[in-house]
């Protein structure tokens, strides 16, 4: 079976620094995959390479058989990769609902003229967008806050809203950058449930960066460990976490 995401020999340098080197990963459909490693190992850089924020110097990225290497961010979004950010990037002044509707941008169309003149198609499409957005908000238990300004959501809900917005683009692959950062154990537990739910109900393939080992060992099926920009270990979660090299990298000498 062909993998959904197939990455070979991905690499990039900033100035003299080789931030990511020879990075390989292969993720199956509907897999929950973890990318871990010490701070500064290059995990977010991998996300930025996959989503077109940076252009790789070397390597190839195949999404569902389609070559997306070096494409622009918006084309990669259209090809089917959505992401969240380590430092939350919401549309702060828009309502919670509009944040998700912005995510639906490329899934529902009407022309500018139809929008300005409020033609029937505008009303119809807007209604569809509202319904779909509300459904997504319900999954993340945010439907009560739909009219609130995003900036006024508590931290944990902002993280959830960001995932909802990413899902609104109907991606094939969802990248989550430290989704549990700053959450308390209760919130993290809830988040794990949600991630499992999303995988199951949306048939989603998920690649996540995380430091919370409880979350990683709890939901990820396979792991890749990154250290100094290179793959240190790769495989089934339990095997990787028991790998002595990985333990050394994390705990130091």
């Amino acid at each position: 079976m062909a993998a959904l995401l197939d990455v070979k020999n991905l690499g990039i340098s900033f100035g003299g620094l080789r931030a990511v080197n020879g990075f390989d990963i292969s993720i199956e459909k509907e897999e929950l995959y973890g990318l871990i490693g010490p701070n500064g190992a290059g995990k977010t850089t991998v996300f930025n390479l996959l989503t077109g924020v940076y252009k790789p110097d070397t390597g190839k990225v195949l999404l569902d058989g389609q070559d997306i290497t070096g494409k622009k961010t918006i084309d990669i979004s259209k090809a089917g990769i959505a992401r969240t950010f380590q430092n939350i990037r919401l549309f702060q002044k828009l309502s919670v609902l509009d944040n998700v509707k912005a995510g639906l941008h490329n899934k529902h169309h009407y022309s500018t003229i139809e929008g300005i003149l409020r033609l029937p198609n505008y009303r119809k499409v807007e209604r569809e967008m509202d319904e779909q957005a509300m459904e997504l908000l319900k999954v993340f238990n945010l439907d009560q806050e739909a009219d609130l300004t995003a900036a006024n959501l508590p931290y944990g809900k902002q993280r959830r809203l960001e995932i909802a917005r990413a899902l609104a683009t109907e991606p094939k692959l969802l990248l989550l950058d430290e989704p549990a950062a700053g959450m308390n154990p209760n919130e993290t537990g809830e988040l794990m449930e949600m991630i499992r739910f999303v995988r199951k109900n949306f048939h989603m393939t998920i690649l996540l960066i995380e430091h919370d080992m409880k979350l990683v060992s709890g939901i990820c099926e396979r792991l890749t460990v990154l250290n100094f920009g290179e793959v240190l270990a790769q495989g089934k979660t339990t095997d990787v976490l028991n790998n002595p090299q990985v333990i050394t990298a994390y705990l130091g000498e």
Partner: protein
Amino acid sequence: MSFISYLINGLSLGSVYAIIALGYTMVYGIAKMLNFAHGDVIMIGAYTALISMTQLGVPVLPAILIAVVVCTVLGVVIERIAYKPLRNASSSLAVLITAIGVSYLLQNIALLVFGANTQTFPSVVKWSGLSLAGGQLKISGVTIVTIAACIVIMIVLTLFVQKSKPGQAMRAVSEDRGAAQLMGINVNGTIALTFAIGSALAAVAGVLLCSAYPSLDPYTGAMPGIKAFVAAVFGGIGSISGAFVGGILLGVIEILGRAYISSQMADALVFAVLIIVLLVKPTGILGKKIQEKV
């Protein structure tokens, strides 16, 4: 011969731009803001010198000194009242719009205090200058003094920033404000000092500008101010040598454009330079690239 004379005029105007551009470039480098009011500080400096000389009868050098002191105080006060409260504002437009407000405020205060009439500015340089090539090429005293002043200021300022302790603090704040603070550098003090130096230079530039082009009204500073910002961007914002190179080049381009292309289109030409530079090499001739962090 006329080409050489235009070129020298261009160098002179460019020297004034360079001195003004220093104020922009230092403030931009250290406080990360476009001080739109900088040009109007020039105008206040010129008025101060003018009044000291004509109404108070102060000799030239003390009059310039008074203008320098007034502008320095003004620059620091503006920074403290209008810009400092907005230093951590969520929108970077906030401080820019405020700076535009300050620019407007200074112009309109000048309008009320000094009136809208254009005043003639007496030359501060009594020396009649040089006559070369058998009288075919005349270089006025003001021109020579302006170019010399610019070179001296550049050298002194470069030494100050490279060698002195406050100068090193400036460079540190400009690199990374947070880290500088952690290292125990007085960030607020350093930014205030930057405004003080920039404004003091603005006073000098004001006197030199009005000596070369002896008319003064409340809007005198606005256009040279904006053009000097263009010069700062042209040379690479944040760089002292960039301000020098950008200022000189812009002055020469403007004077040659005025002479050989069209006098009405000279300003448009200067702005076209800005647009081309920003589109082709936004970091300017001597600037460095900054990468956005995701």
